């Protein structure tokens, strides 16, 4: 079996990366869309989404377990054949790169709106992509080790920021519970699953292949997902508790605005730059995961010896498209609400499910050769 990956990662690194990825896709923007759909019941949505998400994670984990020396792209090629598989892989790669660009765009848009409105976004994008390219060039191991280091500081900051918001919390913002019944909660859950659970399918490019102990890494995937989901729960709920769901659904960066409210003893105030650094690191983890999936997938599709050669040309393409991957803000909001759930469900549910079923069939057939 053609195996160009000789990287070795530890399950704990997978756990940390999975949590960062799950938290990092849209932490700054997610509270506002969820508050719009679910109102004050966002915490119920996330809890429900967390529970349902376990099913999806189980699909990814099982798929990896049944094909322990293949990445996701290799699975597609194996089960779908040369031509159909090739087409699906191409779509997968394009999706991965589009999602990377979207992560870059979110970053640039945030900096542009909040910090430097009169500065063009392109240099910001280019800087971000340059660092991304460097991380990709250094390889998965380096990135995962960096994530381990980042994690300690990220998690502490998040907890500290939330503790400092306690004086501003108004628990009555969570009432009334389920005012309009169950449907809004479900809608919120769907959005949550689409944004924070299904992207984890991209980790299947890394997950079974780079680990020696597949069982341990399976557990790590679950643990990482739960940790990320829990962080999501806390941040979104805190946004709503401090600001009220009406206001949260109306603003673009709820987590950032909420952290502007921190004001303890006058000394600990105006520290929203900390939130920004948390978000930038997490966004970087997410962009890296997507980009690695895309570039590595392309290299595997074309049966190349080394994916590193492709990093810079694709980086250039990313930079070019990052400017109008979302034409403008209203396009972004519309795309995120209408196309994204369908898109992530196809990639993150239907595709892995089909592959899983085929893997199981193959395993059964393999045991009883007819």
């Amino acid at each position, binding site marked *: 079996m053609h195996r160009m990956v000789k990287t070795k990662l530890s399950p704990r690194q997978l756990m940390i990366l999975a949590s960062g990825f799950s938290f990092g896709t849209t932490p700054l923007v997610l509270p506002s869309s969820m508050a719009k759909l679910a109102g004050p019941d966002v915490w119920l949505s996330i809890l429900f989404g967390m529970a349902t998400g376990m099913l999806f994670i189980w699909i990814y984990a099982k798929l990896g377990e049944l094909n322990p020396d293949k990445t996701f792209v290799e699975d597609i090629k194996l089960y779908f054949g040369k031509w159909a598989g090739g087409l699906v892989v191409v779509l997968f790669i394009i999706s991965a790169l589009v999602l990377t660009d979207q992560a870059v765009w979110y970053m640039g848009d945030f900096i542009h709106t909040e910090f430097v409105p009169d500065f063009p976004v392109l240099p910001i994008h280019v800087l971000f992509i340059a660092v991304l390219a460097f991380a990709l060039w250094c390889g998965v191991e380096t990135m995962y080790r960096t994530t381990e280091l980042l994690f300690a500081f990220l998690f502490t900051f998040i907890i500290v920021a939330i503790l400092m918001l306690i004086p501003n919390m108004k628990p009555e913002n969570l009432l009334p519970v389920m005012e309009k019944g169950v449907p809004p909660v479900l809608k919120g859950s769907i959005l949550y699953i689409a944004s924070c659970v299904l992207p984890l399918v991209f980790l299947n490019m890394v997950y079974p292949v780079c680990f020696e102990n597949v069982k341990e890494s399976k557990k790590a995937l679950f643990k990482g997902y739960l940790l990320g989901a829990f962080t999501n729960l806390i941040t979104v709920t805190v946004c709503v508790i401090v600001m009220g769901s009406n206001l949260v659904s109306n603003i673009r960066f709820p987590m950032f605005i909420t952290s502007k409210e921190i004001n303890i003893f006058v000394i600990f105030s105006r520290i929203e730059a900390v939130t920004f650094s948390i978000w930038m690191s997490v966004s970087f983890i997410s962009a890296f995961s997507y980009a690695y999936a895309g570039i590595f997938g392309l290299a595997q599709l074309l049966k190349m010896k080394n994916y590193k050669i492709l990093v810079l040309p694709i980086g250039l393409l990313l930079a*070019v498209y990052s400017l109008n991957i979302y034409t403008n803000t209203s396009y972004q909001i519309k795309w995120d609400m209408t196309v994204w759930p369908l898109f992530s469900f196809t990639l993150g549910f239907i595709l892995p499910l089909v592959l899983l079923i085929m893997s199981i069939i193959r395993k059964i057939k393999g045991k009883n050769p007819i």
Partner: protein
Amino acid sequence: MVLIVILLILGFAATLSIVEIPKLLRTKSYKELCVFSLLLALGVVLSILKSLEVEIGNPSDLFAWIYSPLEDIMESLTKKG
């Protein structure tokens, strides 16, 4: 301004080629060379077009088009409340 950007991009592409192509030729990895040159050329062309403000399309539109039949359902599903 536009000229500077185009020059920068060409400079970047040239530097990259100078560094990478001899390496690839030495190891006789022709497939890699092909893919690399193709992608780089694509990137350079697109970025020059972009700086001349020519429309180069939006990949997100591709996916919006794929899922367009279901767009109305999604809109009604994701209405407030």
